[in-house]
């Protein structure tokens, strides 16, 4: 590929990434108490629309990002897997709340130990439940990830690792 063509392709990737990250149509898969915090985030006070993610779609066929909000039980797991399979590429998954990340404190017979045992996850937002600011932070990280991706939806080799912002009380690197 000549230099000009590579330049055009990389510009195209950037343009498509920019368009995608500001038009996130989410599918909220809400099963538990995290749903309250999701609703708080989605309402006008936190104005999720300024990130282009203001319109939830209640059909997986029309959605780009699967928000898994709340505890997933073993019985619900096949349903979640089917919803994920029904979404069209490119698609992303946000794990909202500690139950979806790891199972949380439900270390028992009924609960799935994290949704990443059945579907791939792009952004983990732990918390019980996470504050809306935390959710918005996760959304921004997802936008950074989408921006860095190849046009086909493949992960780019130059995908930047999200910067961890160290608080003063944390061990400094």
């Amino acid at each position, binding site marked *: 590929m000549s230099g000009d063509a590579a330049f055009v392709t990389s510009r195209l990737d950037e343009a498509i990434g920019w368009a995608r990250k500001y038009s996130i149509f989410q599918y909220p898969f809400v099963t538990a108490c995290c749903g309250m915090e999701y609703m708080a985030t989605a309402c006008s006070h936190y104005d999720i629309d300024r990130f282009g993610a203001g319109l939830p779609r209640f059909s997986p066929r029309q959605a780009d990002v699967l928000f898994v909000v709340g505890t997933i039980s*073993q*019985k619900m*797991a*096949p349903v979640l897997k089917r919803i994920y*399979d029904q979404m069209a590429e490119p698609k992303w998954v946000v794990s909202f709340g500690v139950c979806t990340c790891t199972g949380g404190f439900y*270390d028992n*017979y*009924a609960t*799935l130990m994290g949704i990443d045992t059945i579907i791939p996850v792009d952004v983990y937002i732990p918390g019980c439940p996470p504050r809306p600011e935390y959710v918005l932070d996760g959304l921004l990280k997802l936008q950074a990830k989408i921006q860095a991706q190849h046009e086909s939806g493949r992960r780019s080799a130059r995908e930047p690792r999200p910067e961890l912002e160290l608080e003063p009380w944390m061990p400094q690197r």
Partner: protein
Amino acid sequence: MDAAALIQALTERFADAVRGSHAYRGDATIVISRERLLDLAGTLKDDAAFQMNFLMDLTAVDFSVFGKGPSPAFFASSGVVVRPSAELPDEHPWPGPPGPARFIVVYHFFSLPLKHRLRVEVPLEEADAELDSVTSLWAGADWLEREVWDMFGIRFRGHANLKRILMYEQFVGHPLRKDYPVNKRQPLIEPDGDASSHSR
């Protein structure tokens, strides 16, 4: 009828079946053998002296690790004393589990017209955890008995549809038995696997 009168009336009428009784904190409780459960339940429901037309609850208890060490659950590491303090003696102490059997199935009956209630306990051995269904008397026992089967693996003879109610059919074991490993992982079921067709 108050608790003492209930216990006395039932002990006289079912002398061969009643293995024990107490009225701990005012709750009339009788322990009966499973062979006479249906007779006794029918009498409780239909006899004019009892009129227990409401089955409030039906559940089971696994006593296999009861009293054999500190609670392995939440309070064990916190230092919270679960059992009552010895400094506060109870004038009428809890009588304890009804015998050496592993399981008991517990019925709570209530009489809406007469406003009295009764607890019936049926001890069951592990090797033969089976007793008669009371669905012929109280239709509401249907789901309760399915729950007891699902969680404890106790079978009910004469139940028309005894299958799991909370867990799925591929689930292995009965999770509220005390020997069910707390960290046990079940095989995941696929969307198009046997789980989606709700067959037995």
